């Protein structure tokens, strides 16, 4: 008998688990299919979650009711806040995560989520009828029927790993790859391309001489990724920093003919921001050294990750290269670095809801869309899951604008501009970064998550508590302090003493002051949560800059809110230049603002479009 589900998610990586969870939580009977259940939420590359822009994504996923933050907090080994020397818009939480624990906890979460069924299997075909999704079929011939499918196959489509002249048709870390699904996607009319990425060697901790390296400890007193996390998180593991040197570079340069990136073995497009060490040495020949961070892969393993040493050089060259680095002279390599090539979908095939434009009910998320990174995948998985669920309910898609979330920027970039290399999120991609901070992710998104049905009572109560605390703090900001009351705190940070008295609000607005200054002056503020105080302090201090951004947002928003009907025949719109007609026809933007962002569409074209819209809507 054929099994029926509301929705099926193909792939249980970081995108797939979020999509399946969002579908199940919003009441859809969901099947999550994975090539291997040992690979659920497997961290195939670096052992960390968060970092610049990526930390923001995790916070946003959490605020909407996603699960990456919760599980990351439970599997954390060390936590740091990057960019503390800079403003709050770029403060970025990053955690070293126990890979195996993360996998186990996420698998358990999938197993215990109501409406969610996990099954191992190799999906070879997405079944469609009249341009609509009907179900999927696996390699054994078993068919499952459903109303919506989310593609989340990560880097597993026809993947091939390469180390020197060794090459093998396999997924990452020896997991099975998907061999037939690409052909099926091509048959469905999708534009498929080939990307590449890579990973560094793993080293045995006991063979490393840490005395020669700089130690990096975690920071104390940091917030967590998830609002739901109440227990303290683990923060006792350390990382180490060392550098490449001239010897390392010489070894690489004299063996470039054996490097798959340079001898033509690899044809896929790699990411510029995540270059292999051979690429770095070639492209930045004037640099005398590059950083290498040695990070734990987990609490129960002796393996360490060598961040900065991503490579696909032959095993013997990798060996020499590693041993040339200070502290790694006797390091034992447990796994060699490799490059991996894989098939992925041109994201221009997608609309802003992450739906495949040409097939109703088919959604796509994660590295399969040409992005890179666990966090980027999770963010897309969440949105694809939400929209697949809304599609089943016959509801309008849920879209986040560029001024609402880094998630909005990520998806808009992918589906509007496309990408020619694996896309990584960066805060600089967001025009309105000061508004898209991690300290206000919940303020921006939790109400939306509530409306979507993803934010449940526990999270919503906590959110409301924070909101009411913020109001209370603001009411208390009128409190005034005499000069002698603030003297100690001001002396400490080098701020000049006020004439007469100063209000709490004025204290927070001082250049060098932050929430700690206020807490030192008036301990009654300790009654409030640090997150609530941080939020108030940041909003006050950056008021002027926030207003500048707000003005720009307001101007842009009107264009952003103007939806374009899905059935406009751009090719016949009078007055549009030919190039614009074709670009618009290819991209099929969802809003007027998106149309304006497409390269090749000029402001004059947008005006013509505005008038055309008016014409067809009256």
């Amino acid at each position, binding site marked *: 008998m054929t099994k029926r589900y509301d929705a099926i998610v193909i792939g249980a990586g970081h995108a797939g688990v979020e999509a399946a969870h969002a579908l199940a939580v919003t009441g859809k009977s969901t099947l999550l299919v994975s090539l291997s259940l040992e690979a659920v939420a497997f961290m195939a590359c670096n052992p960390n979650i968060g970092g610049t822009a990526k930390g923001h994504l995790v916070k946003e996923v959490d605020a909407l009711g996603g699960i990456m933050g919760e599980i990351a907090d439970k599997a954390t080994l060390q936590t740091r806040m990057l960019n503390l020397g800079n403003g709050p818009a770029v403060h970025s939480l990053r955690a070293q995560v126990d890979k195996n624990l993360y996998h186990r906890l996420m698998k358990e979460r999938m197993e215990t989520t109501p409406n969610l069924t996990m099954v191992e299997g190799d999906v070879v075909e997405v079944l469609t009828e009249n341009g609509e999704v009907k179900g999927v079929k696996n390699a054994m011939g078993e068919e499952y029927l459903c109303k919506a499918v989310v593609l989340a196959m990560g880097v597993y489509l026809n993947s091939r790993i390469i180390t020197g002249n060794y090459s093998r048709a396999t997924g990452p870390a020896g997991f099975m790859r998907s061999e037939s699904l690409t052909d099926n996607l091509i048959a469905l009319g999708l534009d498929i391309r080939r990307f590449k990425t890579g990973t560094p060697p793993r080293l045995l901790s006991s063979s490393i001489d840490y005395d020669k390296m700089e130690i990096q400890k975690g920071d104390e007193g940091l917030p967590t990724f998830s609002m739901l996390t109440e227990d303290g998180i683990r923060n006792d593991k350390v990382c180490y920093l060392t550098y490449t040197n001239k010897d390392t570079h010489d070894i690489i340069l004299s063996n470039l003919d054996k490097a798959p990136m340079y001898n033509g073995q690899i044809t896929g497009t790699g990411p510029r921001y995540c270059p292999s060490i051979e690429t770095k040495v070639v492209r930045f020949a004037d640099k005398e050294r590059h950083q290498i961070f040695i990070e734990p892969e987990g609490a129960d393993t002796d393996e360490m990750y060598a961040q900065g040493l991503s490579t696909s050089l032959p095993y013997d060259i990798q060996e020499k290269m590693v041993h040339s680095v200070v502290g790694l002279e006797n390091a034992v390599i447990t796994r060699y670095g490799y490059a991996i090539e894989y098939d992925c979908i041109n994201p221009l095939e997608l609309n802003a809801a992450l739906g495949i434009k040409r097939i109703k009910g088919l959604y796509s998320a994660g590295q399969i869309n040409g992005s890179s990174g666990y966090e980027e995948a999770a963010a897309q998985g969440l949105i694809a899951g939400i929209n697949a669920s809304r599609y089943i309910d016959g509801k309008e898609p849920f879209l986040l604008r560029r001024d609402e979330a880094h998630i909005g920027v990520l998806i808009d970039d992918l589906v509007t501009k496309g990408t020619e290399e694996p896309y990584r999120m960066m805060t600089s991609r967001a025009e309105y970064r000061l508004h898209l901070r991690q300290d206000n992710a919940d303020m921006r998104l939790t109400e939306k998550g509530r409306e979507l049905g993803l934010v449940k009572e526990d999270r919503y109560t906590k959110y409301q508590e924070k909101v009411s605390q913020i109001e209370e703090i603001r009411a208390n900001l009128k409190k005034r302090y005499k000069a002698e009351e603030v003297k100690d705190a001001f002396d400490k940070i080098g701020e000049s003493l006020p004439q007469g008295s100063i209000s709490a609000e004025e204290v927070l607005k001082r250049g060098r002051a932050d929430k700690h200054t206020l807490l030192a002056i008036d301990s009654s503020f300790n009654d409030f949560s640090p997150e609530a105080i941080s939020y108030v302090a940041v909003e006050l201090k950056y008021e002027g800059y926030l207003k500048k951004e707000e003005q720009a947002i307001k101007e842009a928003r009107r264009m952003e809110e103007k939806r374009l009907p899905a059935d406009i025949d751009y090719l016949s719109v009078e007055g549009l230049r030919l190039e614009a007609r074709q670009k618009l026809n290819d991209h099929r933007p969802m809003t007027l603002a998106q149309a304006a962002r497409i*390269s090749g569409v000029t402001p004059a074209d947008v005006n013509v479009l505005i008038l055309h819209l008016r014409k067809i809507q009256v």
Partner: protein
Amino acid sequence: MKDTIVATATPQVEKGAIGIVRMSGERALEIVRKVFDAQGFESVEPNKMYLGRITTKNFNDRAFCMYCKAPKSYTGEDIVELHTHGGKIIVQGVIRELVALGARPAAPGEFTKRAYLNGKLNLAEAEGLADMINAQSEAEVNQAYRLMKGEVSKGIEQIKTMLLTASANIEVALDYPEELLEDTISPTLALLNNAKTELKNLYETSKSATVAREGVSIALAGLTNVGKSSLMNAILKDERAIVTDIAGTTRDVLAGSFMLDGVNVEVLDTAGIRDSDDPVEKIGIERATRAIEGADLVLFVSDTSEEESQEEKDLYASFKNKKIIRVANKGDIAKYPRECDIITEAKSGKNVDKLVALISESLDLNKRLQAPALTRERQIFAVGEALEAVNSAIDGLNINATLDCVVVDVKTAYSALASLTGEDVAENVVEEIFSKFCVGK
């Protein structure tokens, strides 16, 4: 709050009967009240013409004003229309004044954009307008193309590159806090200072070129009965002013104009300035003072048949902030030669041609017209906006504001310049980061 935008609603011709300046947005009425007044205008009724007076920094004019209340207006926002006399100088002057008071020059098609976004355009209007707007945008394209090819755009491109590099320098420090080994901030300050200098030059030359193209004004000033009116007639080659030997003949400000090097020069003859109890003359003197203040150049006329009085010295000293040509008139009966730039005989016309040459030289007309410059209020406004933002960024770096804030100003400056070409700032910055810095895992 949304911007209030302003633009001329009638074609820009040198001389037309009427020029209409239109302003749309929440602050339209508030702003217009600062330049326009009429009986009953305090409690203005919508859709009614008010005849009143426009007072700008440089001139006054009689005008009609009409107010359309949101949402019952073309754009769906508050709209104010000023119907002035049709000279280009008047229309541009009014717009300049409104911009100084807080309005923003409208981008091409922006009124229509707002009208559409506010749901104000119906089918018939939209069809009719489609053709009109297309025509406008093609003219725009041509204009932009000419600008793109010229020296100005090269200059702008250079400034944009500086801002792009500055912004990439900051972004790389923000996105790669752990991996970046070099200091990218010190060079950024230098870049911003360079950009500031370039923007300032461009802004000033553009402004001065625009002023020159749209006309300059010179005022004749001096004590009574020194021959200012004769000199005006001689310059204009016309009996524009009444000339008598009676001191204080000229009461009001008289204006006439002539073309000089292709530029319209307005000559203002003013009442001779002296202590007077005559109420009419007093008003004339007040007006003279205002006209002189607004003029680009003052011809300070003295009578060499009379001894240089303390009054004359004081009057001359009171113009020390103005650009001045000292004209020693009545050279034919000069009894008391004095320090001057030129000696003329207004009655016979002797040396008046030399005076005119001196005027051209002094106003730098040729050079101002040839300097690379932007031509449109909108472009000059954009450069002004960029300049302001760069200044703010430099201030930010100097007081150690955090970089995520400083970069807001750098991007604002870049966007202002990019609005002349229509590029996307974020993507460019990302491109720049990758081409310049070694970052990544």
